[in-house]
Each structure stands twice: as structure tokens, then as C-alpha cells.
């Protein structure tokens, strides 16, 4: 396998892993509070829906959309996903947001599941079924976008699918073993790295895709070609570190002022 293939496999695995952990957290909360039958049924229904969605989205993207339009649409989506992750990672690292969101999410979901009404449909708890289905489907669609985008651009959807599928299997196995949220996973570091990757590729492809608005409709080309990706990655990494440093300084100054007032 080439270095590019390993990079594709690793990128799709790590990005999909984080999404799968989020889905598993909610399914576990539903399983423990509302019963495993509803949580598993919701998960299986979502997985069936995801298979249909992946086939339809993959066919539509590769058949109907010109390359530049594909880059603009999926690049923009990747950019939004990536910047949202980067935003959370920056705020957490700077100390402005709680580090272990999965534990907080688990506690919040568990509490709302306990207080929800108990309606049953076809012998299944409706609340547990719907919440599990929604969580798995929503996170699953994000995984499909990541796998299709990276796969189509690297011209190797099969390998990207292996990365995404492997992440789902590993998270599922971990969930079966630990039976509680995967708070031990260094979620913030993973999200920061994946956020940087998605943001870099999203910036690159979305701006290339603007070429759809030229008379020829061809993708725009970056100065330096694919090397621009490396420059973008380094630039986003430096920019995010500068933001973390600046926000920490601000937080320290605020704490110092509060202490002075208290004294």
C-alpha cells in the first residue's frame, strides 16, 4: 500500500471513529435507561436507512454532478463540519468548555430518557427507539459524507469505506466491552486533529469548486497545486494554536482580576 492509501485509510478511520463514539454514547444511554430492545431496533433501522442513503448519495454524486460542483458542495460541508470540531477543540483546550463532553452528553441523555413518558409501539419503547435511530442516522450520514468525499477525491471509495467501516466495528466492540461512554478516548485531541484535516480539505475543495461559476465550469487550481494542502494544514494548525494561546491569556487575565476583586 502507498503512503497516499495509508493517509486515506487513517483519515477516514479517525474521522469516522469520532462520529461513531458520539452515536454510541446516545445509544448506550437509551439502552440502559429505556431498554436494549428499543435501542438496538432503532440502531438497526438507522443502519438499514444508511445503506440506502449511501448507495443513493454515492450514485448521485458520481453520476450527475460535475467535479467542480461536487468539490463545492462536499467541500463546503466538510469545511462546516471541520470548523465546528475545531471550534469545540479550541474552546476546550483553552479551558472555556468542559473537556469530557461524552460524559456530560451521556448524563444529559440518561436524565432526559428517565423523565420521558413511556409509550410503546409494537412492543418497543418509542422514545428509546426514535432517539437511537436519530443519533445513529445523523452521525452515520456524516460518516458517509466523509467516506464518499475523501474516497471520490482519492479515486478509491473502497479503501475509504474500509476506514469508515473499521471505525464503526472498533467502536461497537468497545461499546460491547465497556457498556458505558467512551470517555477514556482522548476525544478532544482526536477532534482537533480531525477538525484540522476536514478544515484543510474543505478549504481546498470548496474554493476549487467555485470554478463551477466560470464559463468553462472547470475546477480552479491552487498556486502550488496539491502542495497547497500542506500549506493550508500548517496555516490552520498555527492559527488554531494562536487562538488557543490568546483565549488562555484572556481567561488568565480574567481570573487574576476576579482574585484581585475578591482580595
Amino acid at each position, binding site marked *: 500500500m502507498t503512503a497516499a492509501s495509508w493517509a486515506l485509510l487513517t483519515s477516514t478511520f479517525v474521522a469516522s471513529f469520532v462520529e461513531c463514539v458520539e452515536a454510541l454514547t446516545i445509544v448506550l444511554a437509551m439502552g440502559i435507561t429505556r431498554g436494549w430492545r428499543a435501542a438496538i431496533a432503532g440502531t438497526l433501522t438507522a443502519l438499514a436507512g444508511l445503506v440506502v442513503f449511501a448507495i443513493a448519495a454515492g450514485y448521485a454524486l458520481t453520476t450527475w454532478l460535475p467535479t467542480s460542483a461536487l468539490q463545492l458542495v462536499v467541500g463546503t460541508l466538510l469545511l462546516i463540519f471541520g470548523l465546528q470540531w475545531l471550534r469545540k477543540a*479550541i474552546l476546550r483546550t483553552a479551558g472555556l468548555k468542559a473537556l469530557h463532553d461524552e460524559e456530560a452528553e451521556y448524563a444529559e441523555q440518561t436524565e432526559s430518557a428517565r423523565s420521558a413518558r413511556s409509550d410503546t409501539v409494537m412492543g418497543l419503547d418509542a422514545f428509546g427507539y426514535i432517539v437511537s435511530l*436519530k443519533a445513529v442516522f445523523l452521525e452515520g450520514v456524516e460518516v458517509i459524507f466523509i467516506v464518499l468525499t475523501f474516497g471520490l477525491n482519492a479515486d478509491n471509495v473502497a479503501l475509504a469505506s474500509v476506514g469508515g467501516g473499521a471505525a464503526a466495528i472498533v467502536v461497537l466492540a468497545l461499546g460491547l466491552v465497556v457498556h458505558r461512554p467512551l470517555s477514556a478516548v482522548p476525544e478532544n485531541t482526536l477532534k482537533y486533529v480531525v477538525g484540522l484535516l476536514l478544515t484543510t480539505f474543505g478549504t481546498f475543495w470548496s*474554493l476549487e469548486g467555485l470554478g463551477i461559476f466560470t464559463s468553462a465550469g472547470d475546477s480552479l487550481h491552487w498556486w502550488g497545486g496539491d502542495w497547497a494542502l500542506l500549506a493550508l494544514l500548517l496555516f490552520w494548525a498555527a492559527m488554531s494554536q494562536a*487562538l488557543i494561546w490568546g483565549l488562555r491569556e484572556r481567561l488568565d487575565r480574567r481570573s487574576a482580576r476576579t482574585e484581585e476583586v475578591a482580595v
Partner: protein
Amino acid sequence: MRALEVSWHFLVDLVVGDDPKVAVAVVLALVVAGVLLLLGAGPTVVTGVGALAIIVAFTVSLLLDVRKSAG
């Protein structure tokens, strides 16, 4: 009607997430780059200024978040 409403909420959840400012920042930056392209700027200028616009828009949205949480 109910299915449409559910699909709309799902789409908003997927694309916008928990912070609409990020999605707005990205769209604004791409509009700036798109306008430059339509005004006749070359690919190097469009991609360079576009990347800068994305970075600035994201930084502003993050600082707005911090100011809101501090206030």
C-alpha cells in the same frame, strides 16, 4: 407535512449543528471569493483571498462566542 418538518430539522442539525455562526461564516467567505471570481480575479487570487476570508470569518465567529460566554 410532518415528514417535511422532520427532514428539515434533520438537515439543519446535520449542516448547521449547534453553532449557526460557523455555517454563516463559511458561506460569507465563499460568497466573497465567488464575487471576486465573477469580477475577473484569477484562480490564485480567488483561492488565496478565499482562504483568508474563511480564516477571518471563523476567527470572528469564535471571538463572538467567547464574548457572549463572558458577558
